């Protein structure tokens, strides 16, 4: 005899089991996100404490009194507005550069058949294996001979020279776009430049936005290149400005953290707005929906 659904005890019902499963999953996810958010919370809470409270032991989880003045004071310790504009300029130009250049190169690797394409692609990828500090001094000498030290050129031009990782990301994404589009366009007499501009760019928007976010973030947070190439404090970037709070003996944690929160904000906002594309863009195996 088959038991009727109503005869089952409550904990044996399907809906109960599913719900438990869901609750457990959610609990794990919640725990995970709390763990991930802890450092961020710590940063924000430290940014609102007084220096005396930061030194207290045991540390306080929530600031005793919220010192928003830390933000204003930190901002006023140096020309942060100027440094912010400098950083923004560099980040925007490198972002534009790396989106355009990398996608054009990726288009070549993905859609144009030529002899030695795969070998060339492997060589491009192999550049990812070279640790950047190995090329540090030679690169510095090169830019110095060109007279580019103390200008933004060493920070910007490399973005226009392509990056293996972005090329790879975009190529994989472009591979999923059917060749028919391109063949049709070729038939109508369009050049590669035109196909890239009118067909590939619009179709690869999620991947392009991903590359844009990555490169904006990288330029925004870069410390080493500005450090090496800029000699004039008026040309400094935010990350270099942050270092003023870190001395050889003492660290001004309250300023360091409040300024860090402010510097973090633009990238968080950018990600917030573009996260939908970002998810699609990093998923290189996804197909087109066109």
């Amino acid at each position: 005899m088959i038991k009727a659904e109503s005869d089952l005890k409550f904990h044996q019902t399907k809906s109960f089991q599913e719900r438990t499963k869901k609750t457990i999953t959610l609990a794990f996810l919640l725990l995970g996100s709390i763990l991930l958010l802890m450092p961020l919370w710590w940063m924000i809470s430290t940014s609102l404490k007084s220096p005396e409270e930061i030194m207290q032991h045991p540390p306080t989880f929530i600031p005793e009194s919220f010192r928003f003045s830390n933000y204003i004071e930190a901002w006023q310790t140096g020309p942060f507005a100027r440094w912010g504009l400098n950083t923004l300029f560099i980040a925007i130009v490198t972002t534009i550069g790396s989106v355009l250049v990398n996608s054009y190169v990726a288009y070549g690797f993905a859609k144009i058949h030529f002899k030695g394409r795969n070998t060339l692609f492997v060589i491009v990828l192999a550049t990812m294996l070279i640790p950047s500090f190995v090329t540090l001094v030679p690169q510095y000498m090169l830019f110095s001979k060109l007279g580019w030290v103390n200008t933004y050129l060493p920070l910007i031009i490399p973005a226009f020279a392509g990056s293996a990782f972005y090329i790879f990301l975009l190529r994989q994404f472009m591979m999923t776009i059917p060749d028919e589009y391109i063949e049709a366009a070729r038939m109508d007499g369009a050049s590669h430049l035109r196909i890239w501009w009118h067909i590939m760019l619009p179709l690869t928007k999620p991947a392009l936005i991903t590359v844009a976010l990555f490169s904006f973030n990288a330029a925004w947070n870069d410390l080493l290149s500005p450090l090496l190439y800029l000699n004039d404090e008026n040309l400094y970037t935010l990350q270099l400005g942050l270092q003023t709070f870190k001395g050889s003996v003492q660290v001004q944690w309250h300023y360091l953290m409040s300024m860090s929160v402010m510097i973090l904000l633009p990238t968080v906002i950018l990600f917030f707005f573009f996260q939908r594309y970002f998810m699609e863009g990093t998923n290189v195996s996804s197909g087109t929906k066109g």
Partner: protein
Amino acid sequence: MKRNVKLSFILLLAFSLLLSACSGGGKKEANATTKDGKVIIDFWSFWGSETRRPVIEKIVDDFNKSQDEIEVKHTFVPWGDIWTKNLAAVAAGNPADVIVNDLASVAHRADNQQAEDLSKLISKDLQSNLYPHLWEPVLYKDKPYAVPFTSDTRVLFYNKEAFKEAGLDPEKPPTTWAELEEYAKKLDVKKGKKYDRIGFYPLWGSFGAGSWMSNADGGKGFIEDGKLAVNTPKKAEALEWVQGWNKRIGDKNVQAFEAEFSSGQTNPFVTEKVAMWIDIAGFYTQIRDSGKEMEIGVAPIPEQETGSGHWNEGGGFALEIPKGSKHPKEAAKFIEYMASEQAQKYWALKNYDNVANVKAAESAATEMKDIEKTVYDQALANLKDTKLHTVPLEYPDYKTRLDPQLEAAIIGKMSAKEALEKAEKDIEELKK
């Protein structure tokens, strides 16, 4: 087709515009003179904090006003990274004219042709104004390659309140290792197996295992005059003594304390979790800025046995002209000013550093008062026992071979003797 050409043309134009826009600012710096014909000296330091920056900028400003041939331009470059940047700039041949660098490794840079020989650039009597133990490290083949600016030395800080609680005389700090240990035990506050307060632990603060070993060994470093002095009986004794602390307090308790304070935001001495602490004199500012009313005392580093010497270790910073500077003569003039009594005294009064100029250091002391003066005086007094162990030319990286063995010994993985034997053998292989 036409549109394509147009598009590429626009892109090209935009690109070249960008190039010219970005290169606009910088270039004129290279052989720069100001409008009124002054030579511009590029001076890099890592003093960018709210407290240090105004001090160095005032000194630079005073110098600029004092004469009309040179204009010093001070640039802040982040701590630590400043030397990476300097190496790249020296390699490329366009360094700054004056840089603040590590005093212990001057000879090393001289050997690698990264710094200018100053023997013909600075006046002969400059040396007589500065502490001899700070002058020694700037010499390479008997010629100076830098001028010492500041130095530091270690001081034993102790919590007077804790001393009273434990029934110790707050005016009688420990003077020998045995006393230090005896006091530390009395200052411990235990709750079951755990510590609420640790009286003292020799490796916290800024006096490491190596410093204790050299303290026992008559102030001798690990490499003296190019000869290894790693595996000596006194050094082994000291390492065993350090191991003893770990055994008594327990590795777990030590690690728990270290983890608790690992962020560096809070200091265990300032929060009264540790009662005695060895650090540089400038550590006093952390106690002051904590806003706590803490009664502290200061003392020399305890000696191993009565009469063996309160051997101490110090470091410091020197002013250097990187090899390839365009204006070494003018740079040297600025360096001489930085080493003058006036500039050095101002620095000492504002930052509590031990400065290199003897008169400046002594006259700064007369102008301080209260606890500030007590700490500063102690640091000055400790200078006579302070050794500055320079980076040996034959074994520049000896620490990378020494430290792993010391660590292994401290956590009890091997005996002190074994560790030092192994370290000496490893270091020997490094010889250039």
